[in-house]
């Protein structure tokens, strides 16, 4: 294949995104010098609105880790952590974060504060627990654990919601003591209102990708928007940014502009990207003019395209619901299947690409079966490639490119013979492609 360069969308959105993220690092630096208090938080189903009520800045170790990787700076801190005794198969995000902490490396070169609280919002991934224990220890900062039960049933149970609400209220007390600031309930509700508007805009952006051609790539471009989504969601800056992004992309869609001069393939992406080779990976899709119309990774922080919004009238309960049920990491595996299936059908995709991350158990365990489910039960072409989201040593360019090219060659051939089906047709075409009724029961997606 000829080397087509990815033409990601460049405009005001990108400029503003960069400014916002830079501003975030500046606020963190201010925090290190007596500015607003900082609180460490995990991305998965995060409760950033709670911090807004204190005027606190979120400190996301995952964002720092991925920023290091994307700037090709992750290997040094990973090696530093391994020298300390972290094992080869520990989550590489953890190693990059801890290693960077030890070596004093920061992604933007700005100073990072010692958080007033290391708040482990344990949602879905149990690596978080140990990660935040270590982070608290190394920074000599207090630690709080928010225990969010894993979602095993289709609907969250009332006891689970009450359990989380009760914990959130305890955290509020703890934060009042640690920051010396009073919990501002009005500001909290205002943050919920901002979040709901951001979620509405973000969700509409995602629904724009249902068009052919899609005006934005719901994996690679979505990742650009995810920083502001997690840092600024509960703030007026977040609202302004996402409403601008929506306008721009709507205009682009109205002009009928896609990612490439001609969109050839539409895929659903599963799994985090290989950040150390982000550009290289993107170019492998670009070579085939393939766009991601939807991705599960962009729903780690929250799953809003199916309708959930934070509710200013029930702020604590809706925070709990968000953490419990409306992010991909805390949902059960069959719900992830169904999420992808809906993307294929409603976002009109030709196939699925799974990027398996060697050091991330949470996302990757079971992806072999997932591949089997999509290819064999639903008859949807599904590619499986392996590397890592943070550790550059696991990326073998020639091997991954080979698999990608073979996958798209097969799709192209199928199209030339009229046997490639898109969207709902792709699934209906499968021999016996129905989910067993017992499984379907547990699968009901939450609205």
């Amino acid at each position: 294949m000829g080397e087509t360069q990815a033409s990601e969308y460049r405009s005001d959105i990108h400029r503003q995104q960069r400014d916002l993220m830079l501003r975030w690092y500046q606020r963190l630096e201010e925090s290190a010098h007596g500015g607003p208090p900082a609180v460490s938080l995990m991305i998965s189903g995060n409760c950033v609105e709670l911090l807004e009520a204190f005027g606190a800045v979120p400190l996301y170790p995952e964002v720092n880790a991925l920023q290091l990787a994307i700037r090709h700076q992750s290997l040094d801190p990973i090696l530093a952590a391994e020298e300390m005794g972290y094992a080869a198969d520990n989550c590489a995000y953890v190693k990059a974060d801890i290693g960077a902490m030890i070596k004093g490396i920061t992604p933007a070169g700005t100073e990072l504060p010692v958080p007033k609280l290391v708040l482990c919002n344990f949602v879905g991934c149990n690596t978080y627990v140990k990660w935040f224990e270590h982070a608290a220890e190394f920074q000599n900062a207090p630690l709080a654990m928010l225990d969010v039960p894993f979602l095993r049933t289709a609907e969250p149970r009332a006891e689970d919601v009450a359990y989380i609400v009760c914990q959130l209220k305890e955290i509020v007390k703890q934060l009042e003591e640690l920051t010396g600031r009073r919990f501002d309930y009005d500001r909290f509700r205002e943050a919920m209102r901002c979040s709901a508007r951001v979620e509405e805009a973000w969700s509409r952006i995602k629904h724009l990708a249902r068009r052919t051609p899609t005006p934005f790539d719901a994996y690679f471009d979505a990742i650009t928007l995810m920083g502001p989504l997690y840092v600024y969601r509960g703030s007026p800056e977040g609202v302004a940014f996402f409403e601008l992004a929506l306008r721009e992309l709507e205009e682009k869609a109205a002009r009928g502009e896609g990612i490439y001069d001609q969109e050839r393939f539409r895929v659903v992406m599963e799994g985090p990207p290989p950040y150390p080779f982000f550009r290289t990976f993107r170019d492998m899709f670009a070579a085939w003019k393939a766009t991601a119309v939807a991705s599960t990774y962009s729903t780690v922080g929250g799953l809003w395209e199916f309708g959930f919004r934070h509710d200013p009238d029930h702020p604590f309960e809706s925070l709990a619901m968000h953490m419990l049920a409306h992010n991909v990491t805390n949902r059960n595996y069959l719900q992830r299947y169904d999420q992808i299936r809906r993307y294929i059908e409603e976002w009109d995709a030709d196939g699925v690409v799974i990027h398996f991350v060697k050091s991330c158990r949470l996302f990757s365990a079971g992806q072999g079966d997932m591949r089997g489910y999509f290819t064999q039960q639903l008859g949807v072409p599904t590619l499986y490639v392996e590397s890592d989201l943070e550790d550059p040593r696991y990326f073998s360019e020639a091997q991954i490119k080979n698999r990608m090219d073979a996958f798209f060659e097969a799709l192209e051939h199928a199209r030339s013979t009229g046997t490639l089906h898109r969207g709902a047709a792709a699934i209906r075409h499968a021999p016996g492609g129905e989910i067993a009724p017992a499984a379907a029961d547990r699968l009901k997606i939450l609205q």
Partner: protein
Amino acid sequence: MRVAAGVDVGSTQTKAVIVGEDGGVRMLGRALVDTGANVQRAAENGFLEACRESGVEPESVGFVVGTGYGRYKITFGNTQMTEISCHARGAHFLFPSTRTVIDMGGQDSKAISVGEHGEVLDFVMNDKCAAGTGRFLANAAEVLGIGLDEIGPLSLRARHPVKITTVCTVFVESDILSYLAQGKKPEDVLGGVHLAIARRTVSLARRVPIDPGITMTGGVSRNTGMVKALEEVLGTKLQVNSDAHFAGALGAALFAIEKMGESFESGIWRPSNATPRG
């Protein structure tokens, strides 16, 4: 007659096949050379030798498709395709009833589910590590001090194949040495080595549906011991012949004939100092 070529530059060997079409398509000749350090040169040599074997002038070859890991290094190729597509196509040409291809090469092993017309329906490959590939066999041969071509036939003589528990290409050496130290016969050790790889390959292949009509391709298909070990683990016969080793290059040549289409342009052959095309 329209003539086209496929060149498969693999990690250890380079294969080239020339096909001709007048009425039907047939294979005119084939060549095999070691890849070595100069990939570009290997591709050229393979191509020229296959031309000689076929009795065609290099200039009369209308289209060349490159495949294998070195495919982008073939300066005289018109286009490239992955060896996954090419092996499926080549295997289907050799055995039209092919529905599953097991390809074992120097550093790769893969299973491909193939449609009625030789198209790829699904595929799986071993990951980054060389466990369960030709490399593993080569290491075992080296430790035993036996030529690579002899290990297959020798393994067929195993009466009590040993149990090899590792599929790691590095650790298998110590496993073999300890069996030899225990006085096990080389054929029993080799029997165990072949079975270990066969089991690993079949468990990989089970991730695509293994439909009947299983064709084995790639360099390891010449190893009679491996064919038998795979048949034993699968519980069924494999389709394999002496051309199966060339299936990738053959598939590439078949795509080349197809792609040549109407725009037949003669004389695309250029020596390597010419600028790359495509």
